[in-house]
């Protein structure tokens, strides 16, 4: 069964894209990540124009992050104030990111830039995650206690910055600048990569802001909802690259997949899960990296000008 996509301007097999949404949803439910880093490359692989994949990916992230954020909010795992500060930075970053997408598309360097950013971030985060989770895994094997990343009374350069704010839920009294800058940086990357950015934001919140682990996921999801919604709006208005039919197919598959993924996730040990996720992230990074380095089968490509009928 086929349906014609109004923005991508191509007919697609409904079942293929429902299953893609479900598969990515399953993994995101399993690992507690948004799954954008898998979805966008897979959409491009299936022939969706890269810019449409990124714009439509933003709409998909709205759905998956709302789903997670609602659950986290009900468990009181959201630091709303922290989320709002990060969101302020995130909105600015998204604005710059969408503008960068427009300029890169115009100059023909969009695809290669996205690929490079993917390889860099997935490679670094995946590598760090793998090292960290392998260490944790060997620690639990040898019966040793996992090292706490947070020591009370520890001071860093972050404490010297102005505009201090009290974040009750996180039990922090820190400057608003680092969370805003992190939000902005992740918002920028998210807009270019078509991802939510949770896998970059969560480590930053834990290691740079030293937020308690309990509120990290909820707060990250909370602000991703708004940043992804803003990215969807900008991609639709500036680039006309949000395909509502494609978004609905992916979301419909994704919401089911995510529930089954979450159920399956409860049966997996935390350390094992992180090793699997790290491996998955690294596989995507290597796959994209190989395409950048190997001589392409076709050297030429063409694109129409914007504003076609």
């Amino acid at each position, binding site marked *: 069964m086929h349906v014609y996509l*109004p923005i991508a301007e191509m007919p697609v097999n409904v079942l293929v894209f429902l299953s893609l949404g479900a598969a990515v949803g399953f993994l995101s439910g399993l690992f507690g990540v948004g799954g954008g880093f898998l979805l966008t490359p897979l959409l491009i692989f299936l022939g969706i124009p890269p810019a449409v994949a990124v714009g439509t990916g933003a709409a998909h992230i709205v759905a998956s992050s709302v*789903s997670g954020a609602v659950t986290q909010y009900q468990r009181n795992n959201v630091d709303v104030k922290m989320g709002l500060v990060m969101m302020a930075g995130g909105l600015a970053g998204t604005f710059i990111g969408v503008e960068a997408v427009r300029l890169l598309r115009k100059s023909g360097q969009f695809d*290669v830039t996205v690929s490079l950013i993917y390889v860099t971030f997935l490679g670094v985060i995946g590598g760090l995650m793998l090292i960290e989770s392998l260490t944790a895994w060997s620690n639990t094997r040898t019966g040793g206690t996992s090292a706490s990343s947070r020591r009370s009374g520890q001071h860093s350069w972050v404490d010297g910055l102005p505009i201090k704010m009290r974040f009750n839920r996180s039990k922090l009294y820190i400057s608003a600048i680092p969370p805003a800058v992190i939000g902005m940086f992740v918002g920028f990357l998210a807009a270019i990569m078509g991802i939510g950015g949770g896998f970059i934001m969560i480590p930053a919140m834990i290691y740079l802001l030293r937020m308690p682990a309990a509120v990290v996921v909820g707060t990250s999801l909370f602000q991703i909802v708004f940043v992804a919604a803003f990215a969807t709006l900008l991609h639709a208005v500036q680039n006309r690259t949000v395909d*509502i039919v494609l978004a609905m197919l992916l979301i419909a598959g994704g919401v089911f997949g995510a529930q089954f993924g979450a159920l399956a996730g409860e049966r997996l040990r935390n350390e094992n899960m992180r090793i699997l996720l790290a491996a998955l992230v690294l596989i995507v990074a290597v796959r994209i990296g190989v395409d950048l380095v190997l001589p392409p089968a076709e050297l030429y490509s*063409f694109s129409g000008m914007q504003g076609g009928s």
Partner: protein
Amino acid sequence: MKRRAWSLPAFAIALLLGMSATRAIAAAVDAPRETVEADVSTRSVSITSGFTGTEIIIFGTVENSRQPSAEAGTYDVVVVVEGTPAPVVVRRKARAGGLWINSSSIRFASFPSYYAIASTRPIDEVSDIAVLNKNEIGFGHVRMMPSGSSRNVATDPAEIAKFREAVIRLKQRDGLYVTADYGVSFIGRSLFRSTITLPPNVPVGALTARVYLLKDRALLSSYRSKVELERAGLERFLHAAAYDAPIFYAAATIVLAALAGMASAFAFRLARR
């Protein structure tokens, strides 16, 4: 007397010969020229959510055909269906610092978005380059002029030709440039038909159908018609919304996405109780 008796039949013969000669000349001058009359089976094609490509039939007749049979091959017919010409940027990758990135580009001011050609014989057998170029018959004969804003490319015609060939190759790969060397067939002395397939990814926009009648490599007559190719129904509504009311379109997408997310969160919670 004898001389007269001889001259009368001679005069009659001469008169008869003269008359038939004049008639032959008159016949040659007045012979009605062959012309082509044609039409398209579908004047307008709608792209709806179920669109997976379609076929259009182009049929026509040779007026005053002097072809003895359908198989005689006296005439050649070429059918061209062309999409709206649009500017296109062609890029070429080169290795830079170990990575393959787009390094040179040429912008062509106008390039047919879709080009299907069918003929009674391969086009190089049908006519000469001058005629093919003039009428833009065949991929290689379509006018594609590079325009300003080209990058890192010498204005060398050989180099431009490579970019041009690349677009044609890519369009052929996507099924948007199609050729059928024996795709036009005569059904009788004067009636011919051809089927043109519009692929599912055909760019939306008006199509032009052209029919050429040729004989002995010379163009005798041509015909031209338009085929509308438009979005319809929901497809039209969504596309128009995305382009004319992008804020409303984006808001609708976001609200739908958020509702789906919330619904799944609540459904999941109920299911777990």
